[in-house]
Structure formats: C-alpha cells, structure tokens
C-alpha cells in the first residue's frame, strides 16, 4: 500500500510555545484515518501545516512521496490535497454549480481565455457532466442552480465535499464535519461520506470531536495532545487506550 500523505517530524512554535512536537503520521491510499484529541491539542495546527496555511519550519510534509513543505496552498491543492472547513466556507453570490465549475477549472488552467470566448463564460459540456456526476453522488441533484445562501448547513457541508471532489483529490482532509449539525444530520453525513469514499477511493484524514463519527468512519487513528502524538493504531484500540482516557478526562499520564 502506498503512502499518500505523510508528515515527518513536523514541529510548530507560536511565539515560543510549542504547538506541535515532532509529529509524524502517514495516510495510505484509500485509507480512512482519524486525528483525535481534546481542544487545544494541536489538531487544527497540524491541519494548517499540512495544507500550507501555516508555514512549517521544522519537519516535512510529503504528498505521494514528494516534499511539498514549501509549496503554497493552491499548489498543494492542485497536487491532490482536498479539504473541507469546520465553519463552512462557500463562495458568496454563487450557485452550487458555480462552485463546482470553478474548482474543476482551477485544476485545468490551459486555454481558459479561448474557452471563455467560445462559451461566453458558460460552463463547458465536460464541466456540466463532471459536476452532474458529483452532485448525483452526493444527492444534491436538484440544487445545481440554487444560490448557496439557500442551502442548509448540512447541504453546505456536502457542497464543500463536492467542490473538493471536482479537483480529483488523492486525500481529503475533513475538518470537524459534524460541527453545527445535530445527531441525526451527523449520522446522515457519515453515511454519505462512507458511500462516496468507497466510490471514489480517495484517502481521508478526519479531525473530529464526535467520537461516534470517528469510530464508525475511520479504521485507524492518531491521538494528539499538547502537540504530541500520544498513540496510534486501529481506532477501537486507540479509543480504549489509557492515553485516550487521560487526554479526555485530565488524569495525569503515568508513563
């Protein structure tokens, strides 16, 4: 099995305070991996380092064996990292279709001007096709021409997934997909995620507080606290580990 995404000894300091301490993790092709830990454990920081939102001074981030540590966000995206956001980030003033079309185009930048002149700015046939496919996959068929302001939070989150799928990612980073959703919505979201992951076969790195979602969705997990990787392994084992109890209940770890 090949490694899609890896961090090698990534450390991160904020004005002298250590947020990440030599974190090394790997995500294999098609694998669903969880990243868990209490508030302030450094999960978001690690996410931002992988995505390039924060610069990494110590350590390396690799994608498909290539060192991407110093690439800007949009280059990483084109190379195959997709993501969703905890507080959904959609493009205002746009329809669902617009979101998918621009994500598709951003990754195929050639001859944009020529195409624009030929189509007068309308989506091209292959873009319509690709976006229809993704919308169907996510059960958003009827919403293609809706402005995003009319979507529910759950639909918005699915649209983020759809948008990232248009770039054909090798690995998708899901940032707290359940936040702001209730139990029922979370369950529905999890079901959809499982389906599309099976269909498209991308790898997933999931940051999530909802233990249930992590347990049902991931096969393997990393536990992070105070910027250290405490333990890793099959999700069930991590959940039952003494480190997990310590991290979540605040008892001192007996090493």
């Amino acid at each position, binding site marked *: 099995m090949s490694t899609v995404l890896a961090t090698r000894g990534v450390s991160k300091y904020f004005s002298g305070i250590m947020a990440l301490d030599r974190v090394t993790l790997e995500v294999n092709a098609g694998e669903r991996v969880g990243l868990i830990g209490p508030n302030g454990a450094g999960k978001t920081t690690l996410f931002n380092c992988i*995505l390039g*939102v924060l610069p990494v001074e110590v350590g390396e981030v690799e994608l498909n064996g290539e060192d991407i540590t110093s690439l*800007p*966000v*949009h*280059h990483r*995206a*084109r190379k195959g*990292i*997709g*993501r969703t*956001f905890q*507080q959904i*980030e*959609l*493009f*205002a*003033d*746009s*329809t669902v279709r*617009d*979101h998918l*079309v*621009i*994500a598709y*185009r*951003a*990754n195929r930048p050639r001859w*944009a*001007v020529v*195409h*624009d*002149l030929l189509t*007068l*700015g*309308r989506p091209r046939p292959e873009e319509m096709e690709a976006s229809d496919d993704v919308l169907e996959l996510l*059960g958003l068929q009827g919403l293609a021409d809706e*402005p*995003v*302001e*009319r979507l*529910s*939070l*759950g*639909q918005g*989150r*699915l649209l*983020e997934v759809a*948008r*990232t799928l*248009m*770039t054909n990612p090798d690995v998708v980073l899901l940032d707290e997909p359940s936040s702001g*959703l*209730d139990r*029922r*919505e979370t369950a*529905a*979201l999890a079901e959809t995620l499982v389906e599309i992951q099976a269909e498209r076969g991308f790898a997933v790195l999931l940051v999530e507080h909802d233990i249930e979602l992590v347990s049902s969705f991931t096969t393997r997990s990393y536990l992070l606290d105070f910027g250290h990787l405490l333990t890793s392994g099959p999700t069930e084992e991590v959940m039952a580990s003494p480190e997990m109890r310590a991290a979540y209940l605040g008892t001192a770890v007996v090493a």
Partner: protein
Amino acid sequence: MILAVSVVTDFFQAVLQGVPPGTVYALVAIGFVLTYKTSGVFNFAFGAQAFASMVLFHKAADEWGWGTVPAAILSVLIFAPLLGFLLEWAVFRHLRTAPPLSTLVVSLGLTVAIPSLVTILLDFSPKSGSSPHGVVPDGRTVRYDPFGVYPFSRDELVATIVAIVAVLGLAALFRFTPVGLMMKAVVESPRMTELNGISADRVSAGAWALSSFFAGLAGVLIAPRFTTFSANEYFNIMVIAIAAAAVGKLVSLPWAFGGGLGLGVVIALVSTFLPRWTDEFAWLKPVQENVLPSIPFVVLFGVIVFVPGLRKAIGSSDPLAGVDPPRQNVASVITSAGWMFLALKAVLLLGAVAVVYTQADRTWTLLVTQAVAMGIIFLSITIITGLAGQISLCQGAFAAIGAFAVYQLGEVRGMSVLVAVVIGGAIAAAVAAALSLTLRQLTGIWVAIATLAFAFFFDAVLVKQSWIGGDSLARSRIPRPVIGTIDFQDDSNFLLLAVIVLAVCALGVYLFSRGTTGRKLRALGGSEIAARSVGISPSRARVAAFALSGFLAAVGGGMLVIGQGSVNYGTSFVPFLALFWLIVVVTFGVRQPSGAIVAAAFFILFESVFLKGEIFGWILRGEDNIPSFFPLAPDWRYILFGLGTIQYARHPEGVLAMSAAKRRARSERRAADKVVVDSAAELGTPA
C-alpha cells in the same frame, strides 16, 4: 578643513530646518495612529477633521472678530473633540463588525464630505489672496535663531513646541492615568474590557474625541504652512503622515512620532545635499528634481511592501474575536438580471443617446460625451473593487496615463488618437500589472494605501516629467480622430463613437466577470482560503484584474481628453478626485457594469441637472421657473455622495441593487409558494 566645517554646518542647518515640518507630520501621524489603535478604523477623514477645525478657527478669529485664544479654544478644545465624538457615535460605532474595506470607504466618504459640509455650514469664504495664519501674531515674519544656523519663524516654533508638549501629554496619559489604561485595554480587546465592567463604547468614544482633538490641534498649527485654504493640502499632509505612521506599523505612538520627525529631517537633508552631486553629474538632474517630492510616497510604499510584519500588526490580537458573528458575505441579491431586463436597459440607454444626438445643444452633447467617457473609467472600478474586492486609489493615475498617451502619441507624434488610446490602455495595463505584482502579498487596506502612495507619486513626480506631462499649453490641442469619411470633429458623431467604445468595454467587463478569471475572483471574494484550497492562485487572478482595470481606466481617460480636446490633469485626474470616483461608483453599485454607467451619468450631470436646478426648469417648462435657491454650491455633490457611503456600509450592494433586491423581494412575496423561512431555522434542518 573648511569644507568639512561647512558640511557640518549644512548638516546641522538641514536637521533644524527639518524639525518644524517633521513635528507637524509627527502630530498628524500620532492622531492617526491613535484612531487606528483604539478603533481599528483606518481614518482617512483625519485630514478632513483637521481642516474643519482650521476653518472654524479662521472663521471665529477673522470674521467674528474673536481673539486668537478664544478662537483656538473653540475650534481645538471644544469643536474638535465633539466632532470626533459625533463621528464615533453616528457612524463608526455601527461599523464595528463591518468588513474593513467598507469602513475604509466610509472614511473616504467623510474625507470628501466633511470639508465641504463645514465650509457650507459656516458660510466660509475667505477673501481672495488671504491665506491661513497661525495662533501667534506676525508668525511668519518674526524669526528666532537659537543656534545661529537656522532661523525658526515664530509659527514654526510655536507649532513645534505645542506638538512636543501634546505628544508628551499623550504619553503621560497612556502611562499614568486610569483613562489611558482603559484605552490600552480596549485596544487589545474590547470584549475583555467589557468583562471587567468597563463600557468599551464609552472608552472608544473618548478615544475618538481625543484623536479628533489631535486633528484639530494639527489643523490649526499647520495652517500657516499653506498659502490657500484647501482641504486637498490637508489630505496631502495626511498621506505623508501615514508614511510616518507606517514606520511604526500604524500602531506605535513613539515610532509614529519618530517617523514624522525623521521624515521631515530626511527631506531637509536630501534637499540640502543633493545639488552638490549634480554639479559634476548633470545626468542626475532629473533624479535630483524629483527625489524630494517623492520621498514620503516612496517611504510609504516601501514600508508597506517590504515590512512583512506590518500586515499582522493589528487584528487577530483579540482573544475573544470569535464572539462576533462571522462576517456576512454580501447577500446574493442579483444572480442574473436576465436578458429581457438587460435588453430593456440597453433600449432605454440607446433612446437617451438618440435624444441627445438629435436634440441637445453643443454644451449638453459635450456633457453627455464626458459622462460616457467617465463611464468607461468607472467600469475599471467595477472590475477592481466590485469583482476583485480590492480598493485601488490610483485609478486617476491610470486614467491620466491614457490621457497623456493620447497627448504624447496623438498630438506630439501625430499618431491616430484612437490607436494612441489603445496603446495608452496597454501601457496602463502593464503599469497596473507591475504594481499589483509588487503588492501580490497584500490585501485589504494595505492595497488601498499602497495604491494611494502610487497615485501621489505619479501626481508629485511623473506628471511633471516632460515625456509624460509635457507642455501644459500644448496639452490643450488634442485632435479628434477621423475614420474614413466620418469626421469626429462633429460632437454628435464623437458621442456616438464614445458610446460604442463604452458598449464594447461594458461587454468586455461582462464577459470577463463571467469567464474563468471572473469566476476565480468571485470565489476569492467569497472565501479566499476555500478558493486557494481548490487550487486557485490569488495573485494571478488579481494581477489580471488590475491589468484590465488599468486598461479600462486609461481608455476612458483617453476618450475623455479627446472629447474635451485637452488634457486637464488638475481638474480631471488628481488623486483626491479619483477617490471621489470610487465613492460615487460604490454608492451606485460597484458590482454590476450598470452601476458604473449610472454613476458616471450622475457624476457628470449632477451639477447641471440638480445643483443648477435645470431639472425643475424642465419640469416647470421654462428656465425662469427654476426656484430661486438654485444654483446650489457644487460642493453639495461631495456632501451627498460622501455621506452616501455610510449607507454603503450597511448595503454594500449599492443603490441600484438595493432597489432590485426590493423588487425581487416583492415579487417573491407575491409568488408566496416558497415560504421564506428564518434562515437560521433553515440552516438547522437536515440535508
């Protein structure tokens, strides 16, 4: 040896000479930093506030016959703080959670509105030839020479001493008093200050009053430096002061003071020592002539571009910032106007042109032609601000590039003026692209300030170059084009040509915004981080937008001067005016091309139609029926549009879109099959 002594003397003299203007810059910079620190507002209106106090001071001292002291007390100690209080209470308090760009636009609006408003309300009309004076008698003529190298005028001395005392006082306030402590707390986090039981609103109102007091003080003290009562001068001084403030990353009071003082001294030093080189190096002459006026703008530009920490200087320091609701993106009110609606508008527009073409007299034809050319320039604002979400304050410079290209290529070199227009557009596009490449790491107010610095650099230096600005007499002989048998010397014909160019440009803007780059820009505007994370490069899209915007502005500028037959840089393209363009376009809607076109019509025709009351002449059939209180002062347009920006902050989509949204809301209510649910409740429902 003698040479060395004279160099030392010169040096000393230059330093002393630089101190008085330096303290003035420092004073303005400090007031400016004070507002920025305590309210987060980048207050361009600071210069306008200073101007207002200066006007009141002169009104009281000269016309009401008050003594200097009571007049100074009224204008600086009473009026200025009240004005600051009023601004905070009526305007900026409501903009706390507004995006920084709309706050910036509002402060630009106040910049143009306040001077006119004060002048009109006070009925201030200084006698021709009179010039501002200081707070002491014979301030200009009485001189003191404490060191025997440089004689300070009494005005300079007073200004310097008062400024230093004021700055020390401010330092003491922050260092030793409870009020200062509260202000520091509010600066860091208004929320946390409130958790301590202190009303952040009240503290922040106090801070506005205090900074406005500094504005008033600066306004009165620096008045004798100018020969006329002009708000422009105050705006210029403020741009220099921003350079001083930028040295301290806009938040450090001591650095702002040092920056101002340093700028004054550096300018004096350069002006003292530069000529020496050029005795032998004649080729340095143009450099020498232009270095001086460009220093502040080069410093400002340089600081913004090269100091990386600057951008993070403020914001994100409040640990409780998450309490505010996420910034509202401009609600989608217009998804597509629909072809029917567009066609209707086109028919109306063509109808209006037809009426003007066949019926209007020469004056009106020329006015409408100007409006059409202005429309092209304004489309450049639609692109850069409406689509790319950047505030550019150098559109005037781009338009001027087009105008000067027409003059240099068409008039001086005898090229066809229409070809010259296109070449001018290309040059401006290249300049704009280069500018935005330099600024590609920046967003928000930093782009606005950097472009402002460029605009002033262009204004102070480039326009005066003979290969750009040329000879002002010759600039009034721009020929009209001839295509085949059609001679555009005929004003009506030229109007038609201008309308065609406008139509082509508007179509281009429309296609650009629907095309790939337009989509990318809209995505970036909606959420920059999300756009980048699907692979969109922000800088590339923005460079494209800047280039197109520069091109349009230059084409518009070119058409404008061909229509007028001359390049009137001073009345058409100066930075202050370009700032007003932005405000007008923003008021009418910066997101659709139609907003730009309507804005241009208003901008040009407003004075004739409304201020001179001709519209009543038409309605009441006969010029004699125009009510007697017309004509109104032309300044009213500054006041109306300037204050209009306040409504922009609440409805960023502009007047046109606002009414369109209302129309849509009405029709939706009628349709009634789709119940408009409370968006909150809607968000809660499952997918």
